[in-house]
């Protein structure tokens, strides 16, 4: 099984055949040389057939599923771990605090423009203000902050960056720094 008429050795032919198994492209001359070698060398032809069929069987093998018990362990030590739940809980309250703070400021503004609004609308604004403030109070408790500190914190860390991102400049409050919750 030395070099055949086309000059390709058994080692070269099997190297080329492995490249075929790998799905690699090869030039026509090499492919023809390999095919001629396999056609004239029974040993290499048998090996090639065995390699091809072995590959077919390997490709058909199924996966071994991760047992449910192991998956439960993964969840309990990652997304469901107590430490991460606490972190998410705090984040949610910060989000709630930010939303409530924005609503609070907006509704305070609306409720004070009595001369331009109907009385009914003003009452709605006052009611909404009270509710937004209640949410802010709950959020502040959950964050273990006073209402004023919670307001400042979420304003500085959540609201201002969000406003800057969308290009909104917070108007300067009459009594100093913007949106510091002077009425709280």
């Amino acid at each position, binding site marked *: 099984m030395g070099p055949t008429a086309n000059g390709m050795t058994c080692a070269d032919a*099997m*190297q080329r055949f*492995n490249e075929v*198994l*790998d799905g690699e492209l090869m030039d026509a001359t090499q492919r023809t040389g390999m095919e001629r070698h396999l056609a004239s060398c029974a040993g290499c032809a048998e*090996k090639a*057939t*065995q*390699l091809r*069929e*072995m*590959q*077919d*069987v*390997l*490709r058909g*093998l*199924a*996966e*071994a*599923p*991760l*047992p449910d018990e*192991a*998956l439960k*362990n*993964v969840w309990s*030590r*990652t*997304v469901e771990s107590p430490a991460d739940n606490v972190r998410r809980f705090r984040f949610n309250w910060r989000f709630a605090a930010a939303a409530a703070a924005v609503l609070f400021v907006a509704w305070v503004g609306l409720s004070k423009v009595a001369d331009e609004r109907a009385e009914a609308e003003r009452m709605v604004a006052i009611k909404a203000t009270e509710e937004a403030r209640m949410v802010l109070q709950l959020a502040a408790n959950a964050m273990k902050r006073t209402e004023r500190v919670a307001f400042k914190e979420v304003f500085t860390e959540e609201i201002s960056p969000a406003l800057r991102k969308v290009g909104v400049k917070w108007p300067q409050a009459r009594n100093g720094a913007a949106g510091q919750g002077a009425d709280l």
Partner: protein
Amino acid sequence: MQENEYESVVTMYKDRVHSYAMTILRNPTEAQDAAQEALIRLWEHRTSVPADGARPWLLRTTHNLCIDHIRRRKVRSEVGDGDDWVETRPDEGPGPQKLAESSDLRHSIDRALATLSPEDRAVIVMREVQHLPYDEIAAALDVPLGTLKARLHRARERLRTKLFRTGVTPWARQQTG
């Protein structure tokens, strides 16, 4: 990687990670430990691993954890604690193949795979069973592409030879069936 992305990645790759560990370690308990550990480490590194880079990261981590397990086995074996290296007992564990179908052919492939070195098994499983691209395998095993291909060709030939010698091969089955 966001939390919901992590959950998707785990759901998508948990079986692949476990199958890989099972084929390399050939021990259900160790394979489960390695798979769990790899998935948990991904969570711990989620801020630095993007969702689209999770598969190669998991593959590499699982491979390294499997190698660590094998090294520990060797150490245990050397100190003579009675726990033989499982490599010497290739029939241990069901293996992914047996779980899928317990035909003679698959059983013989399972046994033949068990006789290969962990390195040979790694390239066979990653390429032939899991159909992973070369660059991903090369990154996982930390070898150049050329080395990887040479190793794959050698591993294929070794596996073919083992199968041929067992007498239970696809070709023998075809002849008897």
